[in-house]
């Protein structure tokens, strides 16, 4: 073989080896494990912290059993505890960790129950001007058992 060709082939071979070496260093181990992405990122995203514990964890183990049994039978059962009482996972893991107190202002109830033209007509709504004389709703309505019977 002619020497200049030999040199060219050697350089080419070196470049290929260098490419393989650098690639093995740069590309993360799990890249391509499941597809054209870093497989470990699935694990990372799975291990993010949960903040909302779910209502069931409020009612168990004699913690808030009484209020839970009231709530779970009434019409506000579709509103989960943490919707008003703020995310509670930290509090579930450590009871000393306090929750943000629930907002019991008129406006907070109004977020769902003030009359709005865009809301479905069947949904219970009040006209804030005409109903309740600007009193806080919780003055008459128990948020855990909102209907009189």
């Amino acid at each position, binding site marked *: 073989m002619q020497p200049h060709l030999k040199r060219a082939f050697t350089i080419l071979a070196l470049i*290929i080896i260098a490419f393989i070496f650098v690639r093995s260093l740069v590309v993360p181990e799990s890249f*391509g494990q499941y597809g054209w*992405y870093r497989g470990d990122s699935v694990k990372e995203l799975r291990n993010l912290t949960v903040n*909302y514990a779910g209502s069931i964890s409020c009612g168990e183990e004699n913690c808030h059993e009484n209020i839970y049994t009231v709530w779970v039978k009434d019409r506000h059962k579709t509103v989960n505890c943490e919707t008003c009482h703020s995310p509670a996972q930290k509090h579930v893991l450590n009871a000393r960790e306090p929750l943000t107190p629930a907002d019991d202002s008129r406006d907070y109830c109004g977020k769902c129950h003030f009359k709005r033209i865009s809301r479905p007509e069947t949904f219970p709504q009040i006209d804030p001007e005409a109903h309740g004389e600007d009193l806080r709703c919780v003055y008459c309505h128990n948020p855990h058992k909102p209907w009189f019977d």
Partner: protein
Amino acid sequence: MDITRRDFTKIGCKIIISAASGTAIVESMFTKGIAAENPPEGYDWEKHFWGYVVDTRKCIGCGMCASACKMENEVPFDEEVYRTWIERYRVKKTINETREEEVEIDSPDGGIEGFEDDIPAEEIKKAFYVPKICNHCDNAPCVQVCPVGATYTTKDGVVLVDYEYCIGCRYCIQGCPYGARYFNTEKGTADKCTWCYHRITKGLLPACVQACPTGARKFGDLKDNTSEVKKIMDEERITLLKPDLGTKPKVFYIGLDREVR
């Protein structure tokens, strides 16, 4: 020494073959250890395929979903970026000569603080809320455009972002026809709804679904015949957003108006 065309081809082929096999050997050396391990421990993603249903007839526009999402996923609270948000559509009574409807569409702060009635009720023909969220398309444009493989669809049908690999080029934000992606200034990467992947793989519901007080949002497994979402898919009349784009969304809407885009 002269080199013939035949010799040149022979040597060239030999080099290419040896380089290719060398690469394969090196690759297999480095990837052997992890290839055998099955993904997310305690959760088999082959057995699930997630779907989402939005019943717009039930949405009251309270904004609990959007704020729960921000709290669960640590989305910057003071910035106008949302993984899920609520839009309000108000079709006005004024019909001009071309019989075109005049529609007001707004979403103040993503609907987190609710909506005020700022147009008199007499002027409005119909009004409704439409919750929006990432559609987790089967054929996702955002995944196609990513130049570095930082966004992908998992085997259980969720489109995710690899925050370590994302270079923040924002192509995906441009590529999403639903406007579901945003730029997270804290992370310096693109970001989006994950359907709360850290929750659903542990058997919990996504934060927005849990927070919805009226059941307008539903989430479930399309591979599970007893799930509510699967039942709705089988029995209700469902619509998709922008089906003409061929993105194959997995958020199914009930009761959408023709004005909704």
